[in-house]
């Protein structure tokens, strides 16, 4: 019996290179069983490579990885019996219907036919796909494809589920649905390894977050610990000329002006009360702003704060 009371996934010194390019440079991770662990990072940080190594799809060049107590190199087959993976690109069979896709998974897992049918029906219901069950997956929307993909992963009730950017490209409503599904999984005792580019997503779902940047872990902790390292939310104002900008900079305490863009950054908690106070202050001094926007910290802020460079690929190269 696997000891699931400690770590579901334990990674030490994981390294992976493609030719000269070092994709993962000594990663250590520890994922507690029954929790959501989020690997946060921009495109090209090495998130998918990490998932591919942990799920036995590609071999590591160094380090040790234990998944559910099994060594991924020596016991790949045992690892595969306890994990489920939903990759970045929905791996559904377009020419099969939703129901047939799920039935295919049940068949390949050699579930007895009665049990297989039951699992398929209940998953279709749970993921709200019953109405479209007889349509081919090619006709599904992006959100439905992701749901079907995840449902296929759940056919065998894996203990550990890897979700590689499960909401990238989804509309806000589908994203919320996916978040609810992930919360339900964890409530059932499943361990979730989630990669994402969105700080908000990691914040919403994960109890532990590791930030990956160009193959290195640059920070790790609970969402709160991480956000404390990040500058808070702020208000940005844009003015039509330098005079207005200078006046505003004088009357608003703690603000920083950007003369080139004619913008002013004012620290703020983003609440209604403080925003009203700020607007009143501008009014008192008859300052007119062209543009007004409230910013909450996003991945770019995290990256700026933790690595000193923005997260976008263009900025890296």
């Amino acid at each position, binding site marked *: 019996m696997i000891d699931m009371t400690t770590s579901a996934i334990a990674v030490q010194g994981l390294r992976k290179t493609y030719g000269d390019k070092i994709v993962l440079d000594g990663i250590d991770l520890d994922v507690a069983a029954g929790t959501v662990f989020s690997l946060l990072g921009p495109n090209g940080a090495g998130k998918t490579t990490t998932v591919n190594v942990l799920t036995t799809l590609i071999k590591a060049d160094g380090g040790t990885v234990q998944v559910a107590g099994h060594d991924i190199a020596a016991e790949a087959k045992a690892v595969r019996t306890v994990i489920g993976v939903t990759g970045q690109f929905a791996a559904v069979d377009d020419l099969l219907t939703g129901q047939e896709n799920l039935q295919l998974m049940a068949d390949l897992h050699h579930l007895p036919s009665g*049990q297989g049918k039951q699992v398929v029906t209940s998953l279709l219901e749970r993921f709200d796909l019953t109405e479209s069950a007889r349509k081919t997956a090619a006709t599904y929307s992006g959100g439905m494809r992701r749901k079907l993909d995840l449902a296929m992963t759940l056919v065998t009730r894996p203990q550990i589920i890897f979700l590689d950017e499960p909401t990238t490209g989804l509309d806000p409503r589908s994203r919320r649905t996916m978040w609810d599904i992930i919360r339900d999984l964890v409530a059932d005792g499943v361990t979730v390894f989630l990669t994402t580019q969105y700080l908000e997503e990691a914040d919403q779902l994960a109890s532990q977050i590791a930030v990956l940047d160009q193959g290195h872990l640059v920070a790790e902790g609970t969402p709160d610990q991480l956000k404390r390292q990040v500058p808070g939310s702020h208000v940005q104002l844009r003015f039509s000329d330098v005079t207005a900008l200078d006046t505003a900079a004088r009357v608003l305490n703690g603000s920083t002006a950007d003369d080139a863009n004619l913008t002013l950054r004012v620290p703020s908690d983003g609440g209604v009360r403080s925003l009203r106070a700020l607007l009143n202050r501008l009014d008192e001094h008859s300052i007119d702003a062209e543009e007004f926007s409230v910013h909450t910290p996003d991945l770019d802020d995290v990256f700026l704060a933790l690595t000193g460079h923005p997260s976008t690929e263009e900025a890296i190269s």
Partner: protein
Amino acid sequence: MSTTTAPSTDSRIKSHERGGDRTMSTISAPLTDARIMLRRNLKHILRNPVTIFNGVLMPVVLMLLLVYVFGGAFNVGEHYVQYATPGLMLLAITYGLSGTAVSVSSDMTKGIINRFKVMNVSRGAVLTGHVAANLVSSAVAIAVIIGMAFALGFRSPASGLEWLAAIGIALAAAFAAAWLTVALGIFAKTPESAGLTVVPLILLPFVSSAVAPAAKMGEGVRQFAQFQPFTPIIESLRGLLDGHPSGGYAAAALAWCAGIALVGYLWSRATFIKRA
């Protein structure tokens, strides 16, 4: 539903039991998996009009063109449908290959192969499933061509045993072509280019004795036509269906089929391990 809402401890135990089942049935698992894959691939074929058109209708269209439009111009010394039927059986096989190449390549490039890998699906099952599905569609295409041939005036003095031998050789050729096609499908970078990789296989029968006697071809082409694999296969079919079988052609045909199948199989396996 108890299976999905059961408490976690319960499900863990269940997944362990299933793990145990899998190891106990390792001998039958690859066969079962291959059968599941065959069923999946046959559904793909039935739902893709292009595949059905290429694999079954195209050979029939070609047959009508050859018999009614071009065939009269070829002097083959007998009614043209009588001459061309064995060759058309081969064309029925080769025209179905592009569908298989595209579908193998789609599996390899569109993420579903990773799903199968992580599921412990026996690796060979993915490939044998494609070969088996291609074989089924080839068998259907060959049956349609034979039916059409009789409708267009083809007559055969062959005995039941000779028919059986002819169908056996045709299926051996289909099997060999299928393995080579699976290898090409894995080798191709995209499904689009996979469809093109089999074009030489589709053209090859035209430079054999399939639609016109090799003896009447130009210098160089004639030698190629005489020694390429499709010629002994077609000639052995022709002999069997005309009621005067040739052991030499049959042996050469089967040797070519075995060789091509083996090369296709080994190439498939090597590329599959590298790619997947």
